[in-house]
């Protein structure tokens, strides 16, 4: 088992957000979480990745049997958890080059490897950027600074490809994408998918799932999973909406 979420209850600012949530993910599986706005999908992603500001009132999260409760977010990332942000932040002044190199080296250090050489870094960066159709000029710019929504999402996937995490959480990766960008991103997610990693896709729409077919679909309501199924469940939601689950 790669990820084990057991009886998880989470609150923030005195408000209950997640209640007795259970979710088990094995290596090689792709899970999709769907649900109406404000039901706690992004909170689950944030809590797994270790973002501050949440109180875990009950339950546990384990990655490869290791309890994550006392592990800060940077260490979780080095252990192999990667979350793509719904709204990636702009960081003017910090170049992609220094940011990506710092992240890759942080992960490599955790794995007992040497820092990546500048030549290997540039080679891999260009190679992965080409897979996503990212213009080389964008690589010279600052982190997400002045990027369009689509470009930001492509750079989230670029980071996923470079960091090669064990567990990927894609929080609304499909929002703000045109059809062509959606296809490119989907192809890269599919190519990345392997028996060694697992992916959680949080989405409102079925359209991404036409390209990246999940093994499991979970419906979220009132801070917990109320129904699980396969790809057909997503189609059902698209046809009927969430009314039956509220």
């Amino acid at each position, binding site marked *: 088992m790669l990820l084990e979420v057991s009886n998880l209850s989470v609150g923030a600012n005195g408000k209950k957000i997640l209640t007795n949530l259970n979710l088990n993910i094995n290596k090689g599986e792709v899970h999709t979480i769907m649900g109406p706005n404000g039901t706690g999908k992004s909170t689950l992603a944030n809590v797994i*990745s270790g973002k501050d500001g949440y109180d875990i009132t009950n339950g546990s999260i384990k990655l490869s049997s290791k309890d994550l409760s006392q592990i800060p977010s*940077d260490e979780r990332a080095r252990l192999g958890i990667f*979350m793509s942000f719904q709204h990636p*932040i702009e960081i003017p002044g*910090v*170049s992609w080059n220094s940011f990506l190199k*710092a992240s890759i080296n942080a992960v490599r250090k955790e794995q007992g490897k040497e820092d990546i050489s500048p030549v290997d870094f540039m080679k891999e960066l260009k190679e992965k950027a080409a897979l996503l159709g990212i213009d080389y000029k964008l690589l010279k710019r600052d982190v997400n600074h002045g990027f369009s929504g689509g470009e930001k999402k492509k750079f989230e996937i670029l980071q996923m490809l470079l960091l090669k995490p064990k567990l990927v959480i894609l929080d609304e990766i499909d929002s703000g994408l045109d059809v062509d960008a959606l296809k490119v991103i989907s192809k890269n997610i599919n190519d990345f998918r392997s028996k060694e990693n697992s992916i959680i896709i949080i989405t409102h729409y079925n359209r991404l799932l036409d390209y990246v077919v999940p093994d499991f679909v979970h419906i979220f309501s009132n801070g917990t999973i109320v129904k699980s199924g396969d790809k057909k469940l997503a189609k059902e939601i698209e046809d009927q909406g969430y009314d039956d689950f509220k």
Partner: protein
Amino acid sequence: MISNKMNTKLKLPSKRDEKWRYSDLKLLEAPDRKASELTGGYTFLTQDENFYYIVLLDGKFCKEKSMLPKGGIEISCSKDNIANFNKGLKFEGKYQVSQNLDNNDHVVLISIDENIDKPVKLVKLTSSKSAFFTTFLKLEKNCNVRFYESFIQQGKHKNLINNVTRINLGDYASCKHFIQKDFNGEVRFINTLEIVCNANSIYENYSVNTIDKSYRFESEVHLNGKGARTSFNGVNIANNNQIYDVVIDIKHNASNTFSKQHYNQVLDKNSSGSFYSNVEISELLNAVEAHQLNKNLLIDEKSVVYSRPMLDINSDDVICSHGSTTGNIDEEALNYFASRGIKLQHAKQLIIIGLLKSVFSDCKLDDFEVENLYRQIAHSIEFYE
């Protein structure tokens, strides 16, 4: 100004437009080493062949240690030459320069009348507890120079450096002016810069300020000729009860003139910084452009910053912008770094370096010049490791 108050407390000169800068040499204590001993440890002075050197020891021109091209640069301490230089600038009513000319070897006039093939390093070396430098630089028509003004303090004692540099750029002349410092002890530094730009001349100033105990940088630029341009690009890094005051006055006195100021500051451990800038655009001018930007990052709760980018616009045909931001490191940015495995301290360092580097990132400099400025920043940020 904060450093004014500090200087008053220390019974040092404190007001801006006083005569003491040029006349009251009693304030300056006698050097604690002989001038001849000063350059002993500085073998670099004659080693780097990529520069020409003009060396001033405790304010006086040192011909033996200087390395000048065969032609193009003339050094003078002559009373008449200096008086003529100042008369040409019409500054004489403002400061009492003439009073100082009896002791004229403390005032050095550098005249450049042709393009120099290498950058010129003006080394201002001191081991005194108080040092006084007055340098006038005259760039004739069409002359271009890269000018490194390096202040070097030998010894680890507390020090006051008072520097005045006055530059006159002839038509179509250009000057890239880098201010560098190498201090071992606690230095309180007052640096005054006065610039006159004639038609189509360009003056650019670059500095990374980090090791002064207190630094007051006062600059006044007169864009007198049509098409004249100036830019001031600097960063202040204070992390230990340091004080930085930046005061820049730019006067647009002709049409088609351009000015830009970009100063970013990072303040930590009870430090303070200020950016007081005033751009004045005279009446009846056309196509004038002026921009001011100051970004400040406060790392601790005790540090303070003052920012006042001010525009005084008296013509209609202008493009101007002024902006200032002050805040702590963005928590969301830190969270983004953490989500990619980067440790907090390293993340802070990258954000700070990013803010500071952005000052120079769009400057038209050679790669090695940018690298040199970046290296100074990186060196100063090591304490965040």
